[in-house]
């Protein structure tokens, strides 16, 4: 099967999502669609998969016209889509998830033939080379394995093309690797495989071919290895990024009385841990999920209560028992899940920005002051919103994250706790977030950043702690001199 799309265009209201994009997907090749948020890559993929219609242009499969009106129609013609979102139903079994929508295939005298369904599901999972047994409860598996179950679901209709819409967005390193391996396996079997991504490491790892999009137009088609990472990035962003993603570190190391200090702090999921962060220092924390990094943030923020040890903030003992006490002590916390923990998508940008510390006159909300605060923060963080009154949900992922960061900075914090501050954020917004963080640190803010993105830890931190099995496994004092591999060795 070979898919050829020609001059595809699509508009949403006054926004042109795609204009005149052509692309050829060859069997046996893994094809990456690369671009920033809003570049049109997901729209293109969804048009190919029947989830969206194009306004203009044509698609042909092996020379025959192809214009699916629905996902079901595309499925019938051998094209399947794997979504960005997790679409596993955790209250069903693995096999039921694989064959969701086709359980009728396993009907025997009116009842469901569980054994046959389990056997068929296992066979599909085995072809993906993932270590999943259908007998396992879903709750024991990680998100990468869940995603692989979704791939098995796609394969259950014997497609000849499988398209992945940013499917690694919610996965960590290890989990994403499993999914990438599954993509590779499909390509090796001669299927058409295409995926949307803005992670350069993923593109490096599996793509044979890549198409870069920017602002709804194609920048170009490239074969793997033709461009280096910087070449890809600058074409995605449309400007030269050679001066680097990360702001320069200050010449002198931050010093002085620690702003935040943990002495033998233990909690559920954290062995006794001691650490300190100086004013103006950015402390990076690496580690796999559950290794204790996130727990350090949660204890400092008052989300999880420590079992023992002592915490001081600005030299004074403080153990926040609730997040409210943490914020009151000017400890700001940016949680890991943007839309379920960070901000209210239905509320306005202003509402979110001033939520932690609404300006007040007595019991009354000071609207004028709030507007000034919000506008200042929008300007400071370069948040792209039509106004401070815009609904937050109308912003792109990167700008949403800037709003969460703005909410934290609006209280003039002494300590800023960050959990994966740039997850799902495109390169352009990332550089702006990094710059803002470094500027805030220069003003004396102490930052603790947990991240799964090792490049980010190496590029931004003044010091890195590596967590393994709920304790600090290594402390790296000179991040500039370390490598991803060195950190991974400490992590595992």
């Amino acid at each position, binding site marked *: 099967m070979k898919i050829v799309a020609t001059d595809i265009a699509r508009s949403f209201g006054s926004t042109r999502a795609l204009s005149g994009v052509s692309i050829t997907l060859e069997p046996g090749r893994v094809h990456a669609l690369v671009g920033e948020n809003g570049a049109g890559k997901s729209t293109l993929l969804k048009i190919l998969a029947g989830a969206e219609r194009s306004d203009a242009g044509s698609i042909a499969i092996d020379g025959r016209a192809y214009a699916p009106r629905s996902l079901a129609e595309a499925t019938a013609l051998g094209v399947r889509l794997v979504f960005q979102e997790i679409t596993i139903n955790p209250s069903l079994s693995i096999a039921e998830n694989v064959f969701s929508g086709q359980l009728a295939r396993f009907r025997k005298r009116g009842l469901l033939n569980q054994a046959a369904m389990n056997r068929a599901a296992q066979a599909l999972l085995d072809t993906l080379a993932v270590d999943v047994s259908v007998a396992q409860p879903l709750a024991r598996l990680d998100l990468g394995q869940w995603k692989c179950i979704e791939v098995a679901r796609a394969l259950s209709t014997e497609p000849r093309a499988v398209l992945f819409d940013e499917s690694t967005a919610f996965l960590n390193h290890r989990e994403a690797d499993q999914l990438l391996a599954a993509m590779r396996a499909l390509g090796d079997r001669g299927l058409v495989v295409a995926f949307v991504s803005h992670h350069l490491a993923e593109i490096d790892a599996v793509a044979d071919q890549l198409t870069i999009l920017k602002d709804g137009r194609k920048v170009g088609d490239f074969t793997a290895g033709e461009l280096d990472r910087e070449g890809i990035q600058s074409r995605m962003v449309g400007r030269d990024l050679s001066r680097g993603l990360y702001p320069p570190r200050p010449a002198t190391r931050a010093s002085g009385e620690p702003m935040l200090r943990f002495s033998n702090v233990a909690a559920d999921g954290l062995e006794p841990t001691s650490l300190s962060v100086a004013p103006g220092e950015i402390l990076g924390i690496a580690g796999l999920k559950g290794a204790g990094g996130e727990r350090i943030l949660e204890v400092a923020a008052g989300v999880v209560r420590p079992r023992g040890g002592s915490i001081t903030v600005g030299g004074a003992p403080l153990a926040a028992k609730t997040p409210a006490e943490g914020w009151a002590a000017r400890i700001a916390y940016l*949680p890991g899940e943007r839309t379920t923990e960070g901000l*209210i998508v*239905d509320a306005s940008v202003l509402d979110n920005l001033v939520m932690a510390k609404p300006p007040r006159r007595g*019991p009354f909300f000071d609207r004028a002051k709030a507007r000034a605060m919000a506008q200042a923060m929008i300007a400071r963080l370069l948040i792209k919103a039509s106004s401070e009154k815009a609904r937050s949900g109308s912003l792109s992922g990167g700008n949403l994250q800037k709003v969460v960061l703005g909410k934290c900075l609006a209280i003039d914090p002494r300590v800023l706790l960050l959990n994966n501050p740039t997850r799902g954020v495109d390169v352009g917004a990332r550089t702006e977030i990094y710059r803002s963080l470094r500027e805030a640190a220069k003003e004396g803010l102490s930052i603790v950043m947990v991240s799964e993105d090792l490049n980010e830890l190496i590029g931004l931190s003044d010091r890195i702690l590596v967590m393994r099995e709920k304790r600090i496994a290594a402390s790296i004092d000179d991040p500039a001199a370390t490598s991803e591999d060195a950190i991974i060795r400490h992590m595992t």
Partner: protein
Amino acid sequence: MSSAKPTVTERAETTQQAPDARSRRDDIRRFFPILLLLVLVAVFSFASPRFLQFNNLMIVAQQAVVLLVAALGMTFVIIAGSIDLSVGAIVALAALVAAATSASLGIYAIVPACLVGAAAGLVNGVVVAKGKVPSFIVTLGAMVVYRGIVLFFTRGAPISIDDERFLDLYSGRTAGIPHSVLIAILLIAIAAVMLNLTVFGREVRAVGGGERIALLTGIRVDRVKIAIFVLSGLMCGMAGLLQGARAMAATAQLGEGLELDAIAAVVVGGTPLTGGVGSIQGTILGALIITILSNGMNIVGLDPYFQNIVKGLVLVLSVFVTIDRKKIGIIK
């Protein structure tokens, strides 16, 4: 494995609507309650000349007062993402207390009535916030308990209110306008200021918009939840007092079903049960729509056995039109 599976509510730019189509639909949503009210008024005044007479309008206003005052408290509860099913029972409890104390306290029976209402709300709020029991269950149980207390003390018999000054202040008229209506207007003003102009009002919206987000942003979610139930109880205390004064008695059946009418008034006014958004203006319109519908159907002489069918249909119709499906996603 961590319990927090990502739930994706970020909207890709690709699903956005054309701005003009969107705003037109938003307009319909926003103005539907007032349109519905105008249509009802037009239909009823066309069908019966008595409907628009000053006297009937004052009866409508008086009938609306108890529902409206209870619905004001309910608005806060629903915006915060909770529900209060004990409203009708608290109204009965407060009316009982007002009746029992009016003989000795006269007009000051308002104090124990409101205190009992607030205390009943406080119990609800503490069990919901500290006990972490869903408000639907807590207030369902509370409804039965509070009603049970009323029955226990009255033994089912009405307690009459004879104190002249009490009746004069709470159900008399000045220049033809019932005092209860003036009191309701005062309460509306207080509620509107609290919801729209205070930090507390913003915290209520934040808790309803995303409880975990509010918690992690340092909002004292427990306190907010307790406060809204106390507020709801306090409003019910006032509603019970006014209802007792109007009926000149407290009965064990007083306020039965009021909780459902109050929820309906809030929802018909455009405040979704999902929380996070809502308005006092909407609740006023909702309470008026429900009251006028009943009053008008009576005046027009519609078969009383048919009236409930109409009321139910109007409720579903108005939610069908006003609900913002894009923001809710999953309809349960």
